[in-house]
């Protein structure tokens, strides 16, 4: 046997891995895998990039680079843009938002009382916190319970506070009042209706079915017209039944019917075994509902519930049709001011941004809640 060890048939060490082909790593690889994976995707990618390049820079130019924040009228805006960027160039006239910002927030609420709706708005989050997040101390729930009364007093006045009539309310404040009332009140009513519809008691079941089917069969706009127009005929002349209150009631009834059906879907998703197990434990109806059925049914229906909430919040803009000055309703009297007549995109974009912030917030919260309540893995 030769003892020459210079020739070896077995590798003495591990061969260092060679880098993967350049086309599959780094930016190139990522692009190949995600953007140019086959001719179809390549074409779509190129078209999308072209669309972005064509659309986005002009919008940024229009909205930010050439936007005007301080001007007294639309024609002044146009002059400023023309002076800075040449004749015929268009720029956003955000000055209207600047001038009417308070009107957008508060409607015609008296200026010296702005602190009241602001305080109500801040307290709303304090009241919502213990409901939304379990980390918040439980005694705070008592505040959540009395919050509606507090908010009502702050916004409309009374008990020593200077009263403010409903006609002065408007803007985002009005959208929030109608939206939050509808959202907060429709969930409990919806739960009761859903349970009622599943009830074995004939009378309760019939009432719930009729209510749900009737409300769901009528468009919201019809209910709003009933609130604003028809009720005036039924009530004796001179009755002071606040229009905003009427609208809040109608919106709540409308959304609770939808809520009931969403929750009924959650109830239907529970296996029969859960009901039987609750019975076997000797729990009565309310205990089994509260401890076993509802927690599971609500968890299943979270996406549907939040979906209804978001839909409801956006539907509040319908009140502009009956002459309430919510953000969309306010656009008309603002545009009728000869200073701002002809302005369109800026106003609608601003309103859209507001609704987006709130709806996106609700959507993110529902995803957080779903992750937190996930128990099946």
């Amino acid at each position, binding site marked *: 046997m030769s003892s020459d060890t210079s020739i070896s048939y077995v590798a003495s060490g591990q061969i260092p891995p060679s880098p993967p082909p350049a086309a599959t790593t780094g930016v190139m690889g990522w692009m190949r895998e995600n953007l140019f994976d086959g001719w179809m995707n390549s074409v779509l990618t190129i078209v999308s990039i072209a669309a972005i390049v064509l659309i986005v820079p002009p919008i940024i130019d229009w909205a930010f680079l050439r936007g005007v924040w301080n001007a007294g009228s639309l024609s002044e805006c146009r002059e400023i843009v023309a002076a800075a960027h040449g004749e015929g160039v268009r720029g956003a006239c955000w000055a209207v938002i600047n*001038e009417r910002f308070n009107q957008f927030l508060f409607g015609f609420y008296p200026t010296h009382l702005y602190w009241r709706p602001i305080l109500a708005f801040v307290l709303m989050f304090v009241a919502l916190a213990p409901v939304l997040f379990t980390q918040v101390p439980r005694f705070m729930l008592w505040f959540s319970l009395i919050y509606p009364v507090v908010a009502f007093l702050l916004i409309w006045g009374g008990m020593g506070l200077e009263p403010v009539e409903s006609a002065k309310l408007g803007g985002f404040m009005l959208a929030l009042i109608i939206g939050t009332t509808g959202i907060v009140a429709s969930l409990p009513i919806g739960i009761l209706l859903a349970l009622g519809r599943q009830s074995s008691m004939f009378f309760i079941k019939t009432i719930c079915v009729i209510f749900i089917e009737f409300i769901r069969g009528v468009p919201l706009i019809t209910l709003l017209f009933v609130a604003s127009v028809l009720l005036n005929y039924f009530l004796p002349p001179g009755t002071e039944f606040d229009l905003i209150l009427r609208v809040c009631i109608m919106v709540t009834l409308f959304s609770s019917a939808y809520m009931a059906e969403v929750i009924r879907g959650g109830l239907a998703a529970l296996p029969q075994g859960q009901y039987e197990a609750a019975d076997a434990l000797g729990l009565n109806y309310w205990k089994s509902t509260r401890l076993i059925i509802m927690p599971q049914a609500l968890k299943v229906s979270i996406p549907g519930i939040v979906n209804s909430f978001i839909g409801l919040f956006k539907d509040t803009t319908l009140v502009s049709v009956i002459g309430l000055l919510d953000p969309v309703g306010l*656009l008309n009297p603002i545009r*009728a001011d000869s200073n701002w007549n002809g302005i369109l995109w800026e106003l609608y974009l601003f309103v859209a941004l507001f609704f987006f912030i709130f709806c996106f917030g609700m959507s993110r919260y529902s995803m957080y809640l779903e992750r937190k309540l996930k128990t099946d893995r």
Partner: protein
Amino acid sequence: MRKSVIFGAVAAAGMMAGVASAGTLDDVRAKGFVQCGVSTGVAGFAFTDANGEWDGFDVTMCRAVAAAVFGDPKAIKFTPTTGKTRFTALASGEIDVLFRNTTWTYSRDVDLKFTFLGVNYYDGQGFMVPSGLGVSSATELDGATVCIQTGTTTELNLADFFRANNMSYEPVPIETNAEAQAKYLAGACDVYTTDASGLAATRSTFEKPGDHVLLPEIISKEPLGPLVRHGDDEWGDVVRWTLNALIIAEEKGITAGNVDDMAASAGKDPEINRLMGTEGEYGAMLGLSKDFAVAAIKTGGNYGEIFEKHIGVNTPIGLARGLNALWTEGGILYAPPWR
């Protein structure tokens, strides 16, 4: 069918309730302010300023009514109404008077049971087209697409006009003036038709107003004026004679500036004296104070002053007086004598 029966019954019940209640003037006095229905926004006629105060041609006249009753143009509350809610708001008693670019028509007066109290603006339906279209008369519009607001008299007038001239058109239904403006500028329709005042106001907001022409044809009469419920003559007289006072004031050269001087002592012209309350007991006949017309005129001046301030040629809306000039100056504005 069933729905309409129910609505009819409800409406009838409402009418009876309205008739049965006491006079509106007493109600207004009791609550201490006038509840005035205005538009949710028509350029120059009704809008909100930066402080959230209502202002405009219609709004100022409504304030004059409040001034006539209470001596204070601020003793008023405004209810914004849409084209759909305005008549029920008035019929149900939610508002006392409607001052909202409403055309005086037979069926509104007779069938809907309202009383029109005069005309504060004579309007008529016109057409606006881009000048690039090369059209110089409305009779050349055969086959055009037309932007038209739904639920208004303009819609019916348009159909009548095209049928009478044996032409066809394609309607593009729209809800608001803002939508019409956007659609028209985007080229979704060749023609935009609405009241001539609205067309002028709309055109004034374009970046290049010169690129659009108003066609010469005015195809309808649109007398716009205030209205109250039927069977409420005393209150109706208050509104009617407030409006007339503003028109007579222009005729006699009484302005917001000199009304105090004129009212201070009786002058040579007996009609001015009667209007100012320095002669006769004309206020008492209406159950108002002697100088109610003075307060009304002080609100925003006479008819001409209100017109020039909000919609006249020096405003962005830029409307000429035209038909709305005094009868002595070639228009048809004519108030009955104050005696």
